[in-house]
Each structure stands twice: as structure tokens, then as C-alpha cells.
């Protein structure tokens, strides 16, 4: 059957046809025709955010939690530019966000019209793909294409810019479902598999470093099976966390700048590193010249341009992590690496951290885990607390730790947790922020209230932009320039929004506050007044190698390496 529809109606139909069920957005002049059509499609839930940045992060959180594309919508000009940080965040972490932006009518384009920005140009280096739809007859195809491109292969953000008059234009519409399916991930297993198997059998001190690719390909079982078959210890990068059970005896922890000493020493002593779905980012490797000097490297990676980009490799296996791990499992012989693991155990050090009366990040995170009975998703912001959340929470289930890794975007946690909460209605989703990052997007509490999104928010309030303060303490002679940060009274803030609010000042209040927040049906905010000048240890100073950690309070201030 053919009918005559507007571009906006077609957009809604295609989103529904492609399985999109929620949009995060904000209206404005150039996207009004779309918002005019939207009420005709009640199956498309629209979440009105309070700032478009939050729409992009929420779509990202939704995408990370589901593996499906998360969709955000904004008007032209300032609406579109407000999306930029969220799009860049998604791009750096390879997550499938589709951004739909209104654009000024075609006849006005190129004339610096009111609220005209070249959003395609602005986002070009931070999108996987983008398209200006300048003909209503191409709209359906372009939207299907965008949703498919975002998720296929190595995922990434796609932007669709639609001039207002294209949204209004009418055309014949024929129901034709799902013309464009995402291309399957490249199947099959590349050549040098035998070399990898041989290296894995010969190595005396092998390590597995697992990244985001484990989560993107869902290779949890395979990773675990390979580790258990070979006894090779597993390191998980910031975005690989929860890809391998935290408490597994073979799990070592997180590597890199704030990795534990034994993890980084294991890397430095290893004679073989099997890197799976990671890009050997500088926060992971430290100074490249001093990274894992004794190790051969096998790199399993979907994106061939990542293989050998940062670290010289001996064997590159290009393809989906799950397929390649399965193929390795067919050929790898059992072994156990006992001596090597004993050696690593000898590297372990007690953690150097001073917190008041048990009001430590570890105690807070433990309480959250217990109160949630092991079923919750943690979304962290950026800073010191992010490192504590990465290292101290006992992740049990795959993909339960979401954070902005590559871009390190403060303000990510609260809106991303909204997306994750809509994707996972059956478990508490906690947004854990510092007092700095929380104040970057706390306006979204209003969104949660209006839309009934029950995000549980924890603010680790130390009165500072803590991570920057730590760098100032270590490398800038304790000059705390622009890092002390004032906060409003969060309990009264919660009250003003009409949500649950609680302040925790002592260790013995933690458990009760967390349980009450979870038990409360709606959004909830718990502020933890933590030690003001605690530091994240250990720390590899920027520019140093993994062999040069700062393990405790420095006695003398260091100066930043120029």
C-alpha cells in the first residue's frame, strides 16, 4: 500500500521499523516538523533532556547497555553543537550513537541563516559517518543506513542532518521493511593463527590484556575459557572491565596510569601479551619506549588500522574477538602458568589509601554491591572516583561498568545512566560522579523526574576537582589553582527536585543510605563527604614508563616533566 507521508512521518516510521524505541532529544525551529509528527507515533518514546549534551550521552549509555544504536535528536545551530561532546565521547569509545539534527531549509543553506551551522563539517572528525539528507526520497534510506553503519563492524556515531523543508516535504511511502541490515562482522579467522598458538604454548610469562572489544563482541565465555584452559592471567583495561569476572582467580586488574603495581609489573616482565580488542592507548601503555620490553605481542582486533598503530606487534589477528578466541580455543593446548602467577602474586602490594572512619570508596562501592545483591550497573564519571569505581567494585556480570574512557568526559555519568536505566529497567543503575562532574550535568535530575527514570546517583564529594588537584599536588608544587569547588546542599537540591536525597558523613551511615536509595522507587541522590585530599595510587606520572609508579604520598613535590 502506498500513502503520502511527510519526511518527518517517514523518519518516525523508519526509526520504529528499525527497532528504535526511545529517543533523547530537545526541540527547536529546524526540527519542529519532526516534533509535530512525533505524537502520531506513541511507540517512539521521547525523553526531553535539559541540555542536548545529555541527549547524546543518554543515547550513548543506552547504546552501551544494549549494543543497539542509541538515538538523539536536536535542532540546528546551538542544538546540534551541544551534541558535539557526546558525539566525540561515543566516537572515542566506539559506541553506536545516531544523532539526528534539524537543519535550516535547503534554500537558506550556505547563507549563514539564523541557527545554521555546518554540523556535518563540525562533526566530521568525530563521526564514523554523516549525511545531509537533501531529498525526502532519500530520507528513509539514509536513516536505515545510519542505524546500520553505527552498529556494524567497529561501532561509532553517525549524524543525519535533515533540512526543515525535507522534513516537511511529502512523498509516496511504501511499507518496505528493513531494506538495510547491518553488515555481519567479518567472519572467518585470519592467517597467522598457528603463529599465535605457538607463541601461546612457548611463552613462559604470558598475559592476556582484554579491552572493550570483548564487550562489543560479547566474547565473555570465550575469554574465560581461554584463560582457564591456559592459566594465563587476565588484565582488563578501563573499557574492558566487567568483560571478565573481577573476582576470578586469574583476574589481575586494570593496567596503566592508575593500574595496580603488580599489574604493571606483570606487563613489564611478561614475555608474551595477547591483546584482545584494545588499542594500546597511552593511558594503558605509559611511555611506549619502556612498554613491555620483553614481550612479544599478539593483537586480536577488528579494526586493521589499530594493529601495530601504537605498539609493535608480532602477530596480528584481524577479526571479531569472539570468532578469533573460538578459533584459538580449538587449537590451544592446556597449560597452567603456575610459576608465573606465583611470581605476579609476589608483586602485590597493600593499597596505600587513607580514608576517614571507613568512609572509603571501597566501603561505599561494597555497600552498593551488597544492597543491589550483585545486580546493578555502574556508570562512572571522570576523575579520581572513576579510578576507584574501576578498581574497587566487584563486577560480576558482563558489561555492567560504563564509563567515558577515550575522551574522559566529565558530566557523562548522570545522563549516560539515564540511557542505561531505560535499557535495564530491572536493576538499579548507579551514576557515580565527583562533585565537579556531577555539577556539569545535574540539571538532568529534572529529566529523570519528568520521565520517571529511577537513576541512583552517588556524588563523591571531596570539595575539589580531585584528579586535577592530585596532579597539582604531585607535579605543580601543591598550587591548588582553580580546583577547590563549592557545591550546593545536595540534600536540599534533591528536595527541590522532589527526589530522595541523603548526605553521608560517616562510615556507619553508608549501608543504610545506599539501601534506602535503592528501596526508594524513583531517582535518588546520595552525597558522600569523602576525604578531601585523598589520592589515587599507584600513579604512573605522565610520560613515565609503567616501571616508574608513584606508590604513596610524595614527600617532595615534583615538577611536571616539560
Amino acid at each position, binding site marked *: 500500500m502506498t500513502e503520502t507521508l511527510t519526511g518527518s512521518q517517514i523518519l518516525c516510521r523508519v526509526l520504529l521499523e528499525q527497532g528504535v524505541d526511545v529517543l533523547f532529544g530537545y526541540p527547536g525551529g529546524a526540527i519542529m516538523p519532526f516534533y509535530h509528527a512525533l505524537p502520531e507515533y506513541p511507540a517512539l518514546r521521547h525523553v526531553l533532556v535539559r541540555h542536548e549534551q545529555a541527549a547524546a550521552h543518554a543515547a550513548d549509555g543506552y547504546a552501551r547497555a544494549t549494543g543497539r544504536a542509541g538515538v538523539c535528536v536536536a535542532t540546528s545551530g546551538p542544538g546540534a553543537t551541544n551534541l558535539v561532546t557526546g558525539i566525540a565521547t561515543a566516537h572515542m569509545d566506539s559506541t553506536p550513537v545516531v544523532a539526528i539534527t534539524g537543519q535550516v531549509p535547503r534554500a537558506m543553506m550556505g547563507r549563514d541563516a539564523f541557527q545554521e551551522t555546518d554540523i556535518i563539517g563540525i562533526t*566530521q572528525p568525530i563521526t564514523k559517518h554523516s549525511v*545531509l539528507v*537533501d531529498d525526502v526520497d532519500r530520507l528513509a534510506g*539514509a536513516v536505515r543506513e545510519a542505524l546500520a553503519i553505527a552498529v556494524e563492524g567497529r561501532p561509532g556515531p553517525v549524524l543525519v542532518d535533515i533540512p526543515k523543508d525535507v522534513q516537511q516535504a511529502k512523498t509516496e511511502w511504501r511499507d518496505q521493511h528493513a531494506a538495510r541490515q547491518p553488515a555481519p562482522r567479518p567472519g572467518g579467522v585470519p592467517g597467522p593463527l598457528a603463529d599465535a598458538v605457538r607463541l601461546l604454548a612457548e611463552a613462559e610469562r604470558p598475559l592476556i590484556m582484554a579491552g572493550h572489544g570483548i564487550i562489543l563482541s560479547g566474547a565473555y565465555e570465550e575469554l574465560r575459557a581461554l584463560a582457564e584452559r591456559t592459566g594465563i592471567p587476565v588484565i582488563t583495561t578501563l573499557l574492558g572491565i566487567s568483560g571478565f569476572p573481577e573476582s576470578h582467580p586469574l583476574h589481575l586488574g586494570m593496567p596503566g596510569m592508575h593500574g595496580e603495581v603488580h599489574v604493571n609489573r606483570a606487563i613489564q616482565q611478561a614475555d608474551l601479551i595477547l591483546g584482545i580488542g584494545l588499542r594500546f592507548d597511552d593511558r594503558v601503555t605509559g611511555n611506549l619506549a619502556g612498554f613491555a620490553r620483553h614481550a612479544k605481542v599478539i593483537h586480536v582486533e577488528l579494526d*586493521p*588500522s589499530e594493529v*601495530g598503530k601504537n605498539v609493535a606487534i608480532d602477530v596480528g589477528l584481524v577479526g571479531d574477538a569472539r570468532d578469533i578466541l573460538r578459533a584459538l580455543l580449538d587449537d590451544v593446548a592446556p597449560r597452567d602458568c603456575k610459576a608465573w602467577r606465583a611470581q605476579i602474586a609476589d608483586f602485590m602490594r597493600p593499597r596505600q589509601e587513607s580514608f576517614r572512619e571507613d568512609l572509603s570508596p571501597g566501603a561505599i562501592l561494597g555497600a552498593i554491591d551488597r544492597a543491589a545483591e550483585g545486580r546493578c550497573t555502574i556508570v562512572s564519571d571522570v576523575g579520581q572516583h572513576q579510578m576507584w569505581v574501576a578498581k574497587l567494585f566487584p563486577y560480576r556480570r558482563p558489561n555492567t561498568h560504563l564509563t567515558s574512557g577515550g575522551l574522559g568526559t566529565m558530566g557523562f555519568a548522570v545522563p549516560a545512566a539515564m540511557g542505561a536505566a531505560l535499557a535495564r529497567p530491572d536493576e538499579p543503575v548507579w551514576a557515580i560522579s565527583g562533585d565537579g562532574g556531577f555539577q556539569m550535568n545535574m540539571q538532568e535530575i529534572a529529566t529523570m523526574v519528568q520521565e520517571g527514570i529511577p537513576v541512583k546517583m552517588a556524588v563523591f564529594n571531596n570539595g575539589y576537582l580531585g584528579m586535577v588537584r592530585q596532579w597539582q599536588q604531585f607535579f605543580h608544587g601543591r598550587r591548588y589553582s582553580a580546583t577547590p569547588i563549592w557545591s550546593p546542599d545536595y540534600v536540599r537540591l534533591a528536595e527541590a527536585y522532589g527526589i530522595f536525597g541523603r548526605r553521608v558523613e560517616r562510615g556507619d551511615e553508608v549501608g543504610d543510605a545506599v539501601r534506602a536509595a535503592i528501596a526508594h522507587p524513583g531517582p535518588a541522590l546520595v552525597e558522600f563527604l569523602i576525604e578531601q585530599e585523598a589520592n589515587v595510587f599507584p600513579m604512573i606520572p605522565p610520560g613515565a614508563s609503567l616501571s616508574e609508579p608513584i606508590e604513596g604520598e610524595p614527600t617532595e613535590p615534583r615538577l611536571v616533566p616539560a
Partner: protein
Amino acid sequence: MSGPRAVTVLIEDHLITLSRAVGLIRRRNLPVHSLAVGPTDAPGVSRLTIMLQSDDATAGRAAQHLQKIIGVRDATAIPAGDAVAREIALVKLRPPPERYAELLDVVQLYHAAVVDESADVVIVELTGSEAFVLSCIRALERFHIVEVARSGAVALESGAAELRMSTQPQLEAGAT
């Protein structure tokens, strides 16, 4: 071996795709020696030739990055020594009348051609490797060069290698 490496790219004819390709080279901070773009025999597909002042590994990685752009049908780096690279230059001259005959000798020596002549100005067309073109331009300097337009190099890999284009267009026609 130093000297520029050729990266050749088959690219769909949309400015956004070209912009992405060039933007990628800029963002990765790759040292561009020259860029040339022109149509191919396949409708809707252009060939972009990027000469990079780099080693083979860097050029190879550039090709891998380019390959990921939606709308790039194929991209390859030609290893040093395997590239046949040629460029064209148009040289506008204002030769002193008494040296016109001498100019024609130089033009002949370089297998160049006079392609335009007006009252006191001529345009010479020359083709060859970059080194050849540069040496020819140097030889023409004494005839008072007014302006030079160079195309930047296009390159093919010697032997049977070819860019193999995925047959499916990746972008809808008319996308910008």
C-alpha cells in the same frame, strides 16, 4: 629509500567523502607532498592520489585508515620503488623575443610542448616524474617564468596490481 610514497584511493564522488579523506590526513598529521583528484572510468567514482613524505609503514597505515571511510571503495599504499608516478605542469613564460628559438630547443629536449601562444606569452606543457618536471622548470627559468601550475602526481603500481573496487556504491547517489 626516501621520497614521497603514493597512496591511491578510489572514492565516491561526494564532497563529504573527499573532505573526510583529506580531513583524515590532516588529523593524523601526515606530511602531504601533493594531492591530485580526478575522475575514473567508473561513473561516480574518482581517484585520489596522495603523495606522502613518509615511510612505507606510515603510508600503509594511512591507506588502512582511509579504507574505513564510508564512500572510499579502496585505498592502497604503493611500496617505495613500485610506484610509477607522473605529474603534469603548465608553465607560462614571457621569453625575450631574441631567445624564442632557444626556448623551442629546450621544449623539444624535454619532450614538452607549446600549448598556447599570445603576443609575448607562451604556455608550455610538460609531463614526467617530479624530478623531471622540476629539472625542466629549472631549465625554463631563464625564459622568464610568469606562473607555474602543477597537477600533483598520479601514480600506478608497476606490474599487475590494481585497486579493486567493491562494486556496490556505499553512498546513495546525490548524498553530499
